[in-house]
């Protein structure tokens, strides 16, 4: 089990106050390991009305929300890759005519093993300032090619599992997720939710995805073929895609039942798993990914995840050979 430790709230005295009627200001800086974090969303929810306002941090990590009605608020920042878990601070009082200062020190995720977050924020910070329309290929479709910094659904709905699957999850929690496949250099998860870099190579007949974990690639056939009948089940399944206007819809079946699906959740599934991904590139710098997982033998209802990934134009997918020096079994005491 990995635990995100989040918090480290710095309490500051307020800066200048503003004499306004029943409105106040919230301002501060978001940092991770003493470094400003730009372009993250700070969500501010009124605890009485549930009204939500958001601000995006500037290059300096600063954020500011003015004209907040006086009241008590929950301030939160969604999880950011493996780098930092969800930050939540409740009961932040906003008073009329005053500025409440709230500096937020995100704690490194993953129980903070140095380098284990795969450099999410270094990539994130390298990727700022990408502007422009989505490129298109000669066949007229948006070109999904590029290196993408995979990020999580900021507001995931908890998966609803059948009793047997709940039992499996209980056992996984009790054993500290010890048997997770990647510990043994096997593929963890066929879903595109691992917060690592993922390179898309788009051609009119195939979308190839490359990433830094087993099995390091995925092929999505775009040539009109169907899923094979009675194929051998595989870790990544058999994927075919087709365009619906500017959205590439990818349909994957034929999975084995060995992987643990959805990063940070590690859910079980059967070989009836059916995954649908919908990819849109609304502009040069972003990929919108809507994911549906259906497995009536495991999930009480289909699971949906909605993610927005950022283009990482200055970064590359690098080699990562897990069997080179994997000490996991030895260090986890697995015989």
């Amino acid at each position: 089990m990995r635990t995100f430790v989040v918090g480290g709230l710095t309490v500051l005295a307020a800066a200048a106050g503003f004499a306004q009627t029943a409105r106040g200001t919230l301002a501060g800086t978001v940092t991770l390991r003493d470094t400003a974090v730009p372009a993250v969303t700070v969500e501010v929810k009124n605890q009485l009305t549930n009204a939500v306002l958001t601000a995006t941090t500037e290059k300096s990590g600063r954020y500011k929300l003015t004209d907040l009605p006086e009241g008590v608020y929950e301030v939160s920042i969604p999880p950011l890759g493996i780098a930092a878990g969800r930050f939540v601070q409740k009961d932040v009082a906003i008073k009329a005519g005053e500025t409440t200062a709230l500096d937020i020190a995100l704690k490194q995720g993953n129980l903070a093993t140095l380098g284990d977050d795969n450099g999410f924020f270094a990539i994130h910070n390298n990727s700022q300032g990408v502007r422009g329309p989505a490129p298109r290929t000669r066949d007229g479709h948006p070109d999904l090619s590029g290196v993408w910094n995979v990020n999580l659904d900021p507001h995931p709905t908890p998966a609803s599992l059948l009793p047997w699957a709940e039992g499996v999850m209980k056992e996984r929690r009790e054993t500290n997720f010890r048997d997770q496949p990647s510990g043994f250099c096997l593929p963890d998860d066929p879903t595109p939710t691992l917060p690592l870099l993922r390179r898309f190579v788009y051609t009119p007949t195939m979308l190839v995805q490359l990433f830094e974990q087993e099995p390091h690639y995925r092929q999505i056939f775009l040539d009109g073929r169907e899923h094979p009948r009675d194929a051998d089940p595989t870790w990544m399944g058999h994927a075919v895609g087709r365009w619906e206007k500017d959205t590439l819809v990818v349909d994957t079946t034929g999975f084995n039942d060995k992987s643990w699906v959805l990063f940070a959740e590690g859910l079980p599934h059967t070989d009836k798993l059916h995954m649908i991904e919908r990819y849109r590139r609304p502009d040069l710098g972003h990929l919108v990914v809507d994911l549906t997982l259906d497995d009536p033998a495991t999930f009480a209802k289909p699971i949906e995840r909605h993610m927005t990934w950022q283009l990482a134009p200055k970064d590359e997918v690098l080699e990562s050979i897990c069997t080179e020096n994997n000490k996991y079994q030895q260090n986890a005491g697995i015989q």
Partner: protein
Amino acid sequence: MRKFVFVACAIACLSTPVVAHHSFAAEFDITKPVTLTGKVTKIEWTNPHAYLFIDVQDAQSGAVTNWEIEMGSPNGLTRLGWTRTLVKAGDMVTVEGSMGRNKPNLANARSVVMTATGKKLGAASSEATQ
């Protein structure tokens, strides 16, 4: 009118079970923090994890123990500004992390500081926005 408003609150610490490259909690015990200062004897710049080995001398007995320190992957460390030659055998470092559960003298590294300069390695250089 200038007023000071204090946000009176406890530190918000959330614990969410998270699965990543492999299970952290199967290897390390977050409730057992450890700080170690010692001389680097070896670095393994390998996947899926890089390791530092350091000789740590017990202040009282003088006995020297070689500790194995697990870090992230070379790819993750590279993006934090590390290189394979950043830390060399003979360098003195201070490591903060958590104790291993199943193997003596094993810990992970949450931070690594070069003792000579006080420089925190991989902390900020490549994460700066400029």
